[in-house]
């Protein structure tokens, strides 16, 4: 009885294994042989890692849509000769550990040649090391955490060195964003007594600290920083504490789910001062949740307002035509540019008949040399992976909309 049963069990396994090796060798010879004549039905994948569920889902969807649009256009035009591009969007739920798992998945999938995302700097800290190890180009539209490209050294006054060799970003950083908005509120708005609250996340804390330092340097009184937990909904205790010190402005380092409730509860408690936030607050959801309480608040965004840029008009038209339900702002245009940087790098890299790890290495090299006009402006990177385009905009909220108040390139 025993030998036949064993055979029955092992036979399919053996056949399966043989079939797999056969497939493997087929693919191998295929990619080498067909390289010249451009078969057109081989696929390469651009990964997207962003929060697709949870509080930040609306912003994450904008990132995914931007990439999808870029890929669709590239496929229609045949930008990458001989290949069809495909998107693999994975949900990181805005959590670092989930991000790391997603990154490993991308590394294991040999068709992934580049990744756009993640949204959060805290997630990037666990995604970038994994992708860097495998040398997969990663471009984030939104990470403003200083240490991702070694900029914390600049803040400390020493020399910058790059921690992740395949990590890039198309946005300005907190060491620029914080001081930029600090100068605006102290110099332009003339605020003197400023309360600072952050959520202790890499992004929120980094931004709030950079802001507080510059605001103090500009001569404003900065109250002792208060902290909250991401996910909190009841801020009454923190607000009561701040109200007793009668500040004339509140800076919040963090994202809109908490910021919107904070501004709402703050104003309802009778502390009617503007809330100022970074790019994590500049989201349509902020207006929706905070409603009328958001009037007169401020938020910065990385880059110039999408609808004022000549280069962004085409993007916005295409985005609208694609009938996405989620708004492109704040990072749809940036993700579109990030995806295009990867696509253009890919177009050059496949032309050199590279595949597998060689292709991944080549894409990183080509992304480093990116130089084109994107939807958010000129896309090019310095040797640390930071964008050379350090434009920021302060928005104020008027009539339920973000209205640009000041756009400038930080010195």
């Amino acid at each position, binding site marked *: 009885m025993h030998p036949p049963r064993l055979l029955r069990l092992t036979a399919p396994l053996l056949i399966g294994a043989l079939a797999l090796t056969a497939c493997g060798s087929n693919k191998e010879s295929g990619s080498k042989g067909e390289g010249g004549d451009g078969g057109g039905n081989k696929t390469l994948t651009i990964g997207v890692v962003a929060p697709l569920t949870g509080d930040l889902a609306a912003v994450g969807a904008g990132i995914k849509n931007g990439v999808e649009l870029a890929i669709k256009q590239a496929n229609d035009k045949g930008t990458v000769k001989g290949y069809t591009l495909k998107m693999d969007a994975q949900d990181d739920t805005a959590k670092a550990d989930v991000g790391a798992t997603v990154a490993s998945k991308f590394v294991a999938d040999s068709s992934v040649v580049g990744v756009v995302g993640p949204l959060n700097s805290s997630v990037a800290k666990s995604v970038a090391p994994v992708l860097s190890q495998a040398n997969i180009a990663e471009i984030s539209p939104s990470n403003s955490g200083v240490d991702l490209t070694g900029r914390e050294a600049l803040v400390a006054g020493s020399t910058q060195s790059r921690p992740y060799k395949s990590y890039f970003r198309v946005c300005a950083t907190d060491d620029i964003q914080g001081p930029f908005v600090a100068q605006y509120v102290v110099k332009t708005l003339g605020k003197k007594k400023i309360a600072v609250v952050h959520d202790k996340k890499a992004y929120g804390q980094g931004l709030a600290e950079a802001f507080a330092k510059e605001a103090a340097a500009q001569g404003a009184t900065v109250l002792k920083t208060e902290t909250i937990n991401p996910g909190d909904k009841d801020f009454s*205790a923190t607000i*009561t504490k701040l109200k007793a010190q009668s500040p004339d402005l509140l800076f919040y380092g963090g994202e809109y789910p908490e910021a919107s409730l904070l501004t709402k509860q703050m104003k309802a408690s009778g502390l009617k001062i503007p809330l100022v936030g970074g790019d994590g607050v500049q989201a349509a959801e902020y207006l*929706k949740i905070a409603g009328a309480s958001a009037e007169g608040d401020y938020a910065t965004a990385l880059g110039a307002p999408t609808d004022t840029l000549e280069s962004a008009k085409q993007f916005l038209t295409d985005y609208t035509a694609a009938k996405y339900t989620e708004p492109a702002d704040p990072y749809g245009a940036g993700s579109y540019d990030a995806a295009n940087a990867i696509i253009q790098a890919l177009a050059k890299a496949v032309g050199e008949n590279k595949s597998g790890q060689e292709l991944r290495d080549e894409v990183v090299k080509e992304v480093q040399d990116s130089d084109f006009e994107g939807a958010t402006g000129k896309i090019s990177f310095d040797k640390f992976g930071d964008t050379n385009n350090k434009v920021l905009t302060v928005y104020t909220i008027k009539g339920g909309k973000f209205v640009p108040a000041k756009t400038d390139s930080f010195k």
Partner: protein
Amino acid sequence: MDLFLQQLVNGLVLGATYGLIALGYTMVYGIVQLINFAHGEIFMLGGFGALTTYLALPSGTPAGVALPLMLLGGMAVSVTVAVIMERFAYRPLRGAPRLAPLITALGVSIALQELIRNFYPRAKSARNFPQLVNPDRRFSLGGDVSISAPNLLTIVVAVIGMVALSTFVRRSRTGRAMQATAQDPDTARLMGIDTDRIIVTAFVLGAALAAVAGLAQGLRFGQVDFRMGFITGIKAFTAAVLGGIGNISGAVLGGFTLGLVEVMATQYAPEPFAGGAWKDAWAFVVLIVVLVFRPTGLLGERVAARA
């Protein structure tokens, strides 16, 4: 002083929500010794039930009519789910080792969250909740101390709910049967009490109070969220343990204590443990200290009064 009093008010509001939910944990634990971790989700479903009722009402319904209907709608959803949960998830496991229903409760909790997240329209992130009670309307309590309308409503309904429950348990026939079942289920059954019905009653009462808290939460923050039951549920469970799990007055006291600790820690905690981000840490420090000196919680697990 005004500052202290204002924080006191903030703490009482927070504690009222914890207390309302803690009652559900404590009643079920008192009778079947089950820590019903899915109770936080019953609270969340109460909020969503109220929202659904509101959306079903013709627009322009005055708040005075809409609010009671929303409360009833929220309660109907919470109670229905709690009864189904008891019948199909917990009752088959009665008499099984205590770990089995506990794990089941965690499973039910996750299942309910995912159900809302995946099947309730636009519930993947927080959903806006109608602000029928204007949060900008504040009532002065003397000096600089004030309370907003939704917060006042929260305290009022919480106290009404707590008093009603305690009266019910002490005075009504069913309430006394609950106490008897809690003390000794076997003897209670011998005396002719339908213990299955009593256990369902405990779930129903807990769910109804959780629905009150769910509606109050929606009105206070202007949103409901599929995840809102998780952390609040854990806090309410902490409140129940703090007060002495199984003890009804204990759950209320535990709720208010926890709320006050969180708020006062935000205001007065010393560096480097100051600020709102540390409030949960302080809440658990207090829990540990209480449990070290009084392992059965503040009011203890008084067998005679538990139900």
